[in-house]
């Protein structure tokens, strides 16, 4: 049985979790015009409506932008490597969108492929994700094209569906969700992707974005048209920053750096992006992807062909952050729309 909770009660609960010393995060208007998922110092900062979605994603709470992997110390006795204190606070994310939550099971696959990345796993375990089903979308949203929907349940521990009367219907989807709300699990998260690629979860009455393309067709194009001038032409506007990758819920490429001084420091990983010119540069000076077209191709290829081949998941949740954040209006949907146009011509 699912519960109901009013918006005020939800906010109050968030306040209680904060007061209990838990790390709570959710959509916050950090300044006029900018909404980000951010730590909540107080429950009244939580933004429950008035915005399509934050400009960032929740991945930074589970896969931080900068994360120390271990420390090193150099002294007379030699070199010592220190495991850094395992300070993984219990986290609650209130007000995630389905396109953010569903990123987590997608990333699970990579971070546990052959070797276990427990940095990711521990934070994932320590995080409870309360998702609020979307009641509005804009022209950049395309979750329904990648097998999701505004009420998709993947990756969420609880899903709140707005009943339009100041209340949410609460679907408890996991033990973590049950523990947080003090209620029973109402049903395991429904895998939102049907074998034929269509969305399973019901869309809310407000309407879901129209399905714009078939990911399999994009995969086919990426595979068959690797050397096509299409990529060069359609990447001309791209200036080669990392805004798309960094605001994407599922992009996960990273760099490893040593930071410190001759006495010691840390080895850490930082987010990185395939759009940077130096991403694949060899020390010999050779660069397999010397032009932006090749780099844009890599993004689409990785998301729609390579990741599905390896892990059976599309590496995209249709959130639209890439296009909204791109300084020049590119992104997955604009590029994929061009692919569909090119294919139909």
């Amino acid at each position, binding site marked *: 049985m699912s519960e109901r909770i009013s918006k005020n009660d939800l906010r109050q609960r968030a306040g209680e979790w904060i007061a209990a010393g838990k790390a709570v995060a959710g959509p916050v208007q950090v300044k006029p015009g900018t909404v980000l998922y951010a730590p909540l110092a107080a429950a009244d900062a939580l933004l429950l409506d008035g915005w399509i979605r934050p400009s960032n994603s929740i991945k930074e709470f589970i896969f931080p932008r900068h994360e120390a*992997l*271990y420390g*090193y110390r*150099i002294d007379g006795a*030699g*070199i010592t*490597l220190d*495991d850094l204190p*395992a300070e993984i606070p219990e986290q609650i994310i209130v007000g995630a969108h389905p396109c953010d939550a569903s990123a987590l099971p997608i990333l699970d696959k*990579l*971070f546990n*492929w*052959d*070797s*276990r*990345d*427990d*940095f990711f796993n*521990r934070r994932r375990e320590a995080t409870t994700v309360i998702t609020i089903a979307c009641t509005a979308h804009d022209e950049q949203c395309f979750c329904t094209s990648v097998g999701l929907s505004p009420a998709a349940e993947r990756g969420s521990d609880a899903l709140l569906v707005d009943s339009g009367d100041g209340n949410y219907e609460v679907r408890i989807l996991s033990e973590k969700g049950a523990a947080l709300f003090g209620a029973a699990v109402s049903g395991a998260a429904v895998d939102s992707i049907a074998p034929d690629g269509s969305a399973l979860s019901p869309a809310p009455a407000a309407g879901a974005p129209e399905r714009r393309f078939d990911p399999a067709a994009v995969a086919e194009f990426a595979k068959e048209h*690797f*050397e096509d001038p299409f990529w060069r032409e359609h990447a001309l506007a791209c200036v080669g920053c990392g805004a798309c990758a960094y605001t994407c819920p599922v992009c*996960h*490429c*990273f*760099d*490893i*750096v*040593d930071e*410190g*001084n*001759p006495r*010691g*420091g840390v*080895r850490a*990983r930082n987010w*990185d992006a*395939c759009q940077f010119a130096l*991403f*694949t*540069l*060899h*020390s*010999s000076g050779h660069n*397999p*992807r010397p032009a932006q077209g*090749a780099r844009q191709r*890599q993004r689409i*290829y*990785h998301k729609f*062909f*390579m990741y599905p*081949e*390896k892990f059976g998941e599309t590496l995209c949740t249709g959130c639209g952050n890439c296009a909204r954040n791109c300084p020049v209006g590119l992104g997955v949907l604009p590029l994929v729309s061009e692919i569909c146009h090119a294919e139909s011509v």
Partner: protein
Amino acid sequence: MQNPYKPDLMEIIGVRQHTADVKSVRLRFKDAERAKEFDFRVGQFGIFSAFGWGESTFNICSSSTWRDHIEFCFRKVGRVTDALWEAGEGDTLGFRGPYGNGYPMDEWRGKDLIFLGGGIAMPPIRCAIWYALENRADYGEITIVYGARTVGDLVYRDELEQWAGHPRVRVVQCVDPGGETPDWKGEIGFVPTVFERAQVAAGNAVALVIGPPIMIKNTIPVLERLGAKMSDVYTSLENRMKCGIGKCGRCNAGPAYVCKEGPVFTFENLRSMPMDY
């Protein structure tokens, strides 16, 4: 908690300078238990650390039959290799590995082996050569053609002499025209040309070809003319790497992560892979 990014600490037990900018370093595990349990397949690579400077990826160029050390060979080209260059015997480096697929030495049993290498590509071939020599009865005729731009760029020269002394091993060294010294006794010419001149029978052979793209491009037709199938010609690819374990998303050549599905590929594999390396 599993930390796949944390290296083993290694002690440098030997450093050898081969050319003006190439050194090889011999390491042993500081942890005796780890040393006992460690094993790898020739052709696999490791990620070596100069703490405070960074990590870099190199093939493990020693034979897996040697239990007392591992070795890697590098050219001094950047921040990390500058730091590795300064390291000496007794110093500590880091090692993560072994990563990658390695050479299918078991599948190569009973075959003749052809090794073709250019310049700094000798180290990833060296491990396979020594492995084969340590398991001599398993392999047929061994042909090694190794060349560099100049005599000063050749590495492991003493071992090339040693290999030539083994039964049924033929070693041909060459330098580019203009790269010879007055006392040079080897061939003069590019590896593909010199290899063709050598008239090696390739019908029952597997070939390992590693070198700059131009060398590989010109060697393939020669191998084909000599009767080799592209599924029997192997290479080891390089790509820029960071994690080495298929997570950081950097090293894919088309659909294959060079760190996981490679770095060893046959040319038949490569033909079906897009030019993304």
